[in-house]
C-alpha cells in the first residue's frame, strides 16, 4: 500500500523496513494500512504520541513498528494483552495499543485477551478480523466463515469438522469489566469514517483511565481471499457484516474511573522492617557441645507437628547451632498426616533429610508404626502415651512415655501436647534453657494468647520432668 498523506505519527521514511522505505509492506487494498493510518492520525490529534507504546502482534502487522513513531514492542503470538499488562503495571500513564489479528487474538491468544479484559486493564485493543490467517498465507482463522475456502479448509469450512465462526465482540460482551466494546468495518469510506470515531473514543477512554476498550475491525485481506480490493469490499458487505454485525455492544465511558489500590513505595529501612516483622532470632551464645541431633516429629495435622519443629529449630539456632527444618508437604499432608525433620548441629549440616533420626517424637500411633524402625540404635523415642496404646518394640533405644495429650487436655488446649513433648525432650538432653525458650517462643507461635499458654505448658512439662523423670 502506498501511503499518500503520511500521518505525523508515522515515521517519515520506514527505515526499519530495509528495502522500499516509502511504502508499507501491506498488500494493495489491505485493511491493516487503513487501520494503522487512523490510529496514527489519532495519536497526533489526541497528543499522546510520546507516551504511546504500540504492541505489535504476530501476523501481517508484526511490522507495525516500521511505521509507528511511538515506543514499540513486538509480542509473541497472541500474548500482547499479557505483555501490555506487564507494561501497564510499570507505567501508569502509558497509552497501550494492542493491535491483534484474528489468529493472534481469537485462536492462540484467547486466554490472554479474556483475562486482560476481565481485569479491566486500562488499554485499547484493536482486533483486526479478516476471517483468515494473512501472514502465513491464508489458513483458516477462528473467524473464517462457514463454507469459506482457505489453505486448511480446501473444501470450505465445515462447522462439523472445523467449528463455527467466533464473534469476539460478543465474547467480550459476556465479560463484566470492559468499558467499551464496538465492532466497525472498513468496507466503505463512510464506515471508515465511523471507525475513526470509534477508535478515538476507545483511545480517549484510556487517556481518562476508564479501563479496557475493545474495537473489532472487519478488515479486507484481498490477497488471501483471492479477490481484487473492490470485490473484497463487496464481499465484506455481503458475507462478513451479516454474520458479524457492525454495532456498539457496550459504552460505559460515562462511568466513573475504576478505583485504584495505591500503596506507597517503601524505602530501604521500611522494607527491612517489613521483612523483619516476624521477629529476629536472638543471637545468644555460641554452642559448646559437639552434637548432632536429627529429630523427627510426627503426628496428625492439628497436633502442631510443624510448628514444634520450627520452635526447635529456632531454639537451636539461638543456642548457637546450625539447624534445618524440613516438613512433609503437599498431598502427603492430606489425610491428616504430618511430620517435620529437624537437624541441629555445631557443624555445618549436609543433607537436611532425617532418614535415620536419633530422636523420634511420636504424637500418635501411626507415627510410631511408621518411624520406629528408622531410629538409630542408641537413639531416643518419645511416645505420647495418651494416644499411643502400643509399646515400643525396640530394645536398643531409650524410650520415654509421656501422657502429653492428657496433660494438655487438663489445661484446656489439646494442641499443646507438642510443646510438652519438646520441653521434656530438651530437658532430658540437658539442652533446656528456660529463659531462651521464652525468648524464642514468639518466633514460632504467632498469637499472643497462645504464647502465654505455651509458656504455661512449658512450666508444666518441666515440673512433670522433675517429678517423674529426674
Amino acid at each position, binding site marked *: 500500500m502506498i501511503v499518500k498523506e503520511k500521518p505525523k505519527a508515522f515515521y517519515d521514511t520506514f527505515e526499519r523496513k530495509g528495502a522500499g522505505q516509502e511504502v508499507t509492506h501491506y498488500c494493495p487494498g489491505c485493511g491493516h494500512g487503513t487501520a494503522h493510518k487512523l490510529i496514527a492520525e489519532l495519536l497526533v490529534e489526541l497528543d499522546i*504520541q*510520546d507516551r504511546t507504546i504500540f504492541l505489535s502482534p504476530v501476523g501481517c502487522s508484526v511490522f507495525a513498528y516500521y511505521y509507528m513513531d511511538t515506543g514499540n514492542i513486538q509480542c*509473541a503470538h497472541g500474548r500482547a494483552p499479557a505483555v501490555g499488562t506487564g507494561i501497564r503495571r510499570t507505567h501508569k500513564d502509558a497509552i497501550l495499543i494492542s493491535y491483534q489479528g484474528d489468529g493472534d487474538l481469537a485462536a492462540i491468544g484467547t486466554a490472554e485477551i479474556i483475562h486482560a479484559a476481565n481485569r479491566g486493564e486500562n488499554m485499547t485493543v484493536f482486533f483486526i478480523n479478516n476471517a483468515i490467517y494473512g501472514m502465513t498465507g491464508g489458513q483458516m482463522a477462528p473467524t473464517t466463515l462457514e463454507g469459506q475456502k482457505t489453505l486448511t479448509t480446501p473444501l470450505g469450512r465445515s462447522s462439523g469438522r472445523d467449528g463455527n465462526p467466533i464473534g469476539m465482540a460478543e465474547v467480550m460482551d459476556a465479560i463484566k469489566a470492559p468499558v467499551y466494546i464496538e465492532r466497525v468495518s472498513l468496507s466503505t469510506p463512510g464506515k471508515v469514517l465511523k471507525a475513526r470515531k470509534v477508535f478515538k473514543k476507545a483511545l480517549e477512554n484510556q487517556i481518562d483511565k476508564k479501563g479496557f476498550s475493545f474495537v473489532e475491525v472487519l478488515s479486507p485481506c484481498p490477497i488471501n481471499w483471492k479477490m481484487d480490493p473492490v470485490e473484497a469490499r463487496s464481499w465484506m458487505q455481503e458475507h462478513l457484516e451479516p454474520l458479524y454485525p457492525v454495532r456498539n455492544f457496550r459504552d460505559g465511558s460515562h462511568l466513573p474511573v475504576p478505583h485504584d489500590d495505591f500503596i506507597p513505595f517503601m524505602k530501604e529501612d521500611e522494607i527491612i522492617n517489613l521483612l523483619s516483622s516476624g521477629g529476629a532470632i536472638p543471637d545468644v551464645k555460641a554452642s559448646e557441645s559437639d552434637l548432632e541431633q536429627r529429630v523427627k516429629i510426627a503426628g496428625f495435622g492439628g497436633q502442631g507437628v510443624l510448628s514444634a519443629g520450627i520452635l526447635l529449630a529456632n531454639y537451636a539456632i539461638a543456642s548457637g547451632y546450625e539447624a534445618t527444618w524440613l516438613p512433609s508437604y503437599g498431598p502427603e499432608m492430606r489425610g491428616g498426616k504430618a511430620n517435620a525433620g529437624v537437624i541441629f548441629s555445631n557443624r555445618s549440616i*549436609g543433607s537436611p*533429610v532425617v532418614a535415620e533420626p536419633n530422636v523420634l517424637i511420636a504424637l500418635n500411633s501411626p507415627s510410631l508404626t511408621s518411624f520406629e524402625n528408622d531410629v538409630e540404635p542408641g537413639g531416643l523415642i518419645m511416645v505420647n502415651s495418651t494416644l499411643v496404646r502400643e509399646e515400643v518394640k525396640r530394645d536398643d533405644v531409650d524410650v520415654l512415655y509421656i501422657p502429653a495429650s492428657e496433660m494438655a487436655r487438663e489445661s484446656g488446649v489439646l494442641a499443646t501436647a507438642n510443646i510438652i513433648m519438646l520441653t521434656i525432650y530438651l530437658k532430658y538432653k540437658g539442652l533446656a534453657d528456660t529463659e531462651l525458650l521464652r525468648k524464642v517462643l514468639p518466633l514460632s507461635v504467632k498469637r499472643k494468647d497462645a504464647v502465654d499458654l505455651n509458656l504455661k505448658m512449658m512450666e508444666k512439662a518441666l515440673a512433670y520432668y522433675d517429678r517423674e523423670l529426674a
Partner: protein
Amino acid sequence: MSNKVKQLIKGNEAVIYGALMGGATHFFGYPITPASEIAHGAAKYFTLSGRHFLQAESEVSVINMLYGASGAGARVMTASSGPGMSLMAEGLSYIAGAELPCVVVDVQRAGPGLGNIWPEQSDYNITVKGGGHGNYKSIVLAPHSAQEMCDFTYQAFELADKYRITVIVLADAYIGQMMEAVEIPDRLLEGERKDWALYADKESRGNLVTSILMDPQLQSEHNWKLQRKYEQISREFCQWEELECEDADYLLVAYGISARVCHSAVEVLRKKGVKAGLLRPKTLFPFPEDRLKELASSARKVAAAELSNGQMADDVDRLCGGLCPTERLCWLGGVIPSVQEICDTVEGWESGVER
C-alpha cells in the same frame, strides 16, 4: 557479630527477601507446588511495599507479563516448577532474543508430565542449555541453602540488568521447602534507567523491543553478538565451592540438594580415610569448567551426583574426557539418596569392589 536480622524461614520465602532487597519491583506468578510459597510471599510483601504482584491466568501469560514489564524497564521476576517452566519456554526465548533482563526461580520437581512434587534436578537441560527455541543461554545459579536462595536472588537482578539476560535460580523442592537461618541483606539495590527500554516518554519513543530480524545477515550478527555475550559472562562470572577437593581421589560434582547429601558423604568418607571431595557449582551456566578439569587431572574418579538421568553428567563427562574416568550417580522420580548409599559406592571404588 553481624547486625543483619536473622530469621528461620523457608528457602522459598528467602527468595522473596532477596528479591525485594535486590530491587525487584514486579512479580507475576501462577501457583505450583513446590514453588507456591514464593508467590504467596510476593503477594504479601510486594504488595505491602508498593511493588507489584499479579497472579496471571497461566505461566504463558506470566512470562509475557515479564516480557512487557522488563521491556518497560522494571526489575521483574517469577517462580515456578516443571510444568510451568515448560509453558514459559517460548517467552524465555523471546526474552533472550530481545535481550531483556529477567529473573526466574525454578523450584524443580519430578517429571516428566505432571510427575510429582518431590525433588528432581531434571530441568538442568532446559535451563542450562537454553530451553526454548534458538541459540540462547541464561545465567543459571544453583543455591543449596535458604541463605543462598536469598543471596542468589538478591544478586540475580544486578546480573540480569548488567548483561541483559535471564537469570534462573535453579533450586529444587527440598531447597525450597527447607527452613534455615537466613540473614536479610541490609542494602536495597535499585535498577537504573535503561537507555533501551520503553518508558512511555519522549526520550524513549524511538526504542523498540523485539526479537524479529527478517534479514538473515542481521539475525546472524545479532546471534553472534549473543554468543559473544555468553562467552564474556563465562569469563567474568563463574562461581563454585570446594569441600576437600585439593587432594581428592574421588571427586563428587553436585549442586542443590544433591550437594547437601554429598557434603555429608564426603565428611563421613574422610573420617574413614577415603579421600573424597565435593565440587559444588554455584553457577551451572557458566559451569566451573577449568577448575573441574584441573581437579579431574589429579583424581582417580570424577562422579556427577544428581537427581536426573545424567543431564549434568553429560557435561562432566565431556569436560573430564581423557583426564580421568567418570561415573554417574543418578536418582529419579523424587527419590533422594541417603548419605550411606553414596559412601558405600565410593568405598566400593576405593576397594576395587563395585557395589
